[in-house]
């Protein structure tokens, strides 16, 4: 399935809903969208991985890149993910210790205030 990207606002957060396959072919589009958001002044980003069917190292690299950009800009970055297959990928790569990962958008928008990247 092709990559799908949609943004919406939830309180002071911008939620980027990602769907489909995030791989070496589609990850550049995800990177572009995240860079656009940061460049347009968005500072609190929640990436919802609920619709993601496949995520590889290229996609993970893009997510880390976005988190670093927001850290420099004093913003916050968090992920929403409850799929065990994806959570296992974060555990194996130790990225579960790098990203704030929440089970729901509600928890992310509430919790990322506390875990804002400094």
């Amino acid at each position, binding site marked *: 399935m092709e990559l799908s990207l949609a943004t919406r606002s939830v309180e002071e957060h911008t939620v980027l809903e990602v769907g489909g*396959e995030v*791989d*070496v*072919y589609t990850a550049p589009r995800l990177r572009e969208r995240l860079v656009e958001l940061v460049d347009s002044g968005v500072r609190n980003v929640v990436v919802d991985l609920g619709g993601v069917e*496949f995520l*590889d*190292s*290229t996609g*993970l*690299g*893009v997510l*880390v*890149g976005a*988190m*670093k950009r927001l850290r*420099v800009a004093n913003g916050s970055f968090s992920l929403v993910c409850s799929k065990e*297959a994806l959570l296992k*990928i974060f555990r*194996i*790569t*130790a*990225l579960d*210790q*790098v990203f704030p990962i929440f089970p729901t958008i509600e928890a992310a928008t509430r919790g990322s205030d506390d875990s804002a990247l400094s």
Partner: protein
Amino acid sequence: MATVRLSFSPAPVHVRTARLVGVAVARRAGVAEELLDEVRLAIGEACTRAVALHNQYGLADLVTVEMSDSEAYSVRVIDHAPIEASVGLTKLPPDELADESLTEDALTTGVGFALLAGFVDDLQVRPVDDGPGTEVRMVWPVQRR
């Protein structure tokens, strides 16, 4: 013994095709259903690595994926990049993953290897027999019907 061999030009768009074929052959070979997500991810990572190496060295040579179901399900992903490009299996610690100085490419490479090592119990990375290049060999058990 049945073997399926797929060769593709080193373009990211073809990695998905390799994943799809690899999983289809795995299913046919009798790899357990619960392992298929890992097979898909591992084949994708090995092919992504090969495509990145060919692009890094400006090589138009085809990347080859060879799948065989004799005894177990084995997949070989073969590139033709200089052997010194084949870094070992390294897992980056969390503090390095978040480090500003680590480039996205370096992070992706490290994470890719962590995924291969984490998802494939039987994994070998070795030089190809003829000419430059490396072979990533992955093996999964099959359930005989």
